[in-house]
């Protein structure tokens, strides 16, 4: 098997679900009324991925808001802040750690198991990593970035174990904040190691939009089987470095820019895959978008994924790869 296709985690929510979530926020809808709509959207995304022929699926996170606050809402010792700005006119809420972190119960397992019932294909378990949870939280309790990251790591390890027990063969631990402070990369490795220690599932970490120059020497040290990198937005700059300093694990290679409305052409994506194949072995190389697609419309996301899969197929056919 080579050039397996996958996605990074989130998909856009269809308008009926966005509207319902707004109603829930205004108190016009209950959780029980929202759930069937989240299930409907998840079913639609699973069907789309299966029809398209994507190899490793995700549930699309239709039941999650922000990737950090989703976990904060489900942990003891955590609250959720008011809105803060990310960029432009985009705002998000942040976790606020107000006490000792603890996991009263499994967080993602119920949805993973429910979605698993919809497909025979591999389905990723999706976690937000301990370093990112720490970096994106306001800490009113621990007073130490390391202590807080390791406290998150402990509860995320419990969650990963539960996903594995439920049958997850692939677990992704997202660390988009990995490059936020390059003097803390040892802490990223340590905290991620606490999450993945002893797991038999394939482990992945995704990161994006950072200064990879300083991070590069750490890629081989990250305690996961695969790294998932945004490559298109950064102009494939990293490939030269990977040629000089080979990656000793699998790579999921972002070939779709998720921050533009413009849908890439098949030729553009094929060129990116061909460039990747100059550096990586086909069996080592997975093909996916740069990042989660939730900021695009459903139509844009689907169009981009169609191009990604078509370009991958064309590359495999041209090279006679299975």
């Amino acid at each position: 098997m080579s050039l397996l296709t996958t996605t990074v985690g989130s998909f856009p929510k269809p308008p009926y679900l966005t509207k319902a979530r707004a109603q829930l926020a205004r108190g016009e809808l209950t959780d029980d009324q929202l759930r069937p709509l989240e299930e409907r959207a998840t079913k639609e995304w699973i069907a789309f991925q299966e029809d398209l022929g994507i190899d490793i699926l995700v549930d699309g996170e239709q039941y999650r808001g922000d990737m950090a606050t989703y976990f904060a809402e489900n942990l003891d010792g955590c609250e959720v802040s008011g809105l803060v700005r990310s960029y432009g006119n985009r705002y998000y809420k942040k976790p606020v750690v107000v006490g000792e972190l603890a996991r009263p119960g499994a967080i993602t397992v119920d949805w993973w198991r429910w979605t698993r019932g919809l497909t025979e294909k591999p389905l990723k378990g999706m976690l937000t990593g301990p370093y990112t949870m720490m970096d994106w939280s306001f800490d009113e309790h621990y007073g130490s970035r390391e202590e807080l990251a390791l406290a998150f790591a402990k509860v995320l390890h419990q969650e990963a174990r539960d996903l594995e027990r439920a049958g997850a063969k692939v677990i992704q631990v997202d660390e988009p904040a990995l490059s936020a402070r390059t003097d803390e990369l040892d802490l990223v490795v340590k905290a991620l190691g606490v999450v993945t220690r002893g797991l038999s599932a394939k482990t992945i970490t995704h990161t994006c939009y950072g200064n990879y120059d300083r991070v590069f020497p750490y890629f081989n040290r990250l305690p996961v089987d695969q790294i998932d990198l945004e490559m298109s937005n950064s102009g494939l700059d990293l490939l030269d470095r990977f040629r000089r300093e080979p990656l000793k694990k699998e790579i999921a290679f972002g070939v779709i820019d998720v921050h533009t409305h413009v849908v890439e052409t098949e030729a553009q994506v094929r060129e990116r895959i061909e460039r990747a194949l100059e550096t990586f072995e086909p069996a080592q190389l997975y093909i996916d978008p740069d990042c989660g697609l939730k900021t695009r419309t459903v139509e844009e996301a689907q169009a981009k994924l169609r191009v990604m899969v078509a370009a991958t197929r064309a590359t495999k056919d041209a090279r006679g790869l299975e």
Partner: protein
Amino acid sequence: MVSTTVVGNYPRIGESSQEQRLRRAIGRFDEGAITAGDLKETERSVVRDVIEEQTAAGIALPTDGQITWYDSQSHFARHLDGVEVNGLVRYFDTNTYYRQPVVRGEVRWREPATVDDWRFASSVARTPVKAVVTGPYTLASLAKTDGGSRRELVREFATAVAQEVRALRGAGATHIQIDEPAITRAPKEVDLLREGLDIVAGEKGGAWLCLFTYFGDVAGILGKLARPPIDNLGLDLVQGPKNLKALAKGGVDVPLTLGVVDARNTRRDDPAALAKSLLGLKGSVALEDAYVSPSNGLEFLPRGKAREKLRFVAETAGLLEAGL
């Protein structure tokens, strides 16, 4: 007398529907449902609120909150020749992003970026309003270039920033702050920063000019930063704890803005403890001429928490004054 100020940006929306009107207006403007004039009106009503919030909390020298800025880099780049604005890049160690300026040719000032907003803020404030400009060293450091002389680039940005300062002064600004957070990441380049700053300061005229560094410490280069022609040096004492120790040794030749209230965390500060720690500088620093401020802009906090931090600034300054 100990005074109070802020560093620059302020949350532009809050939790209530009324406090979210700017977010809605920008959304409607993007959809083509309202005009640029309508959007400007909303922005100005928010600036009015932000000035009022600062004044009510006891801030003697407020800013306009940088309510109209997309970010601290592209807000200037859009008004310069020789620079284009590109994709999103993470802003230091914050989970916020700026549109990265890309240098395409000689950098030249084309038109004011901040004057209209400053003039409006000043017209609705009962106190002087501090104008804030991103410094040439930081503009050059965060921009994308195709190589070329870094020194020349800093000098070009400095000439442009100097013209912005001249325009602000011409509009009547008496207090101007130059933000240079990037120097906390490369203190060895302090001479380059000074070279740019001296060009900017050449246009300050009679205005009070503050240099503010944040997101880290500058302890090893304090002596080079804290000297004329700037009139005040602003320091982050939260992410730059070594700054405090360095200050205790003395040797700063200009008054300070002491960024002591934590602008990166929602945790409640203890004004009594903060004032006590600042009083430890008595004898080394001219505390009676100092401003107390948050450690950096308050935009990284929710609006309600930012309001709370303003009160902590005022309380800390009051306790510091009482302890002198």
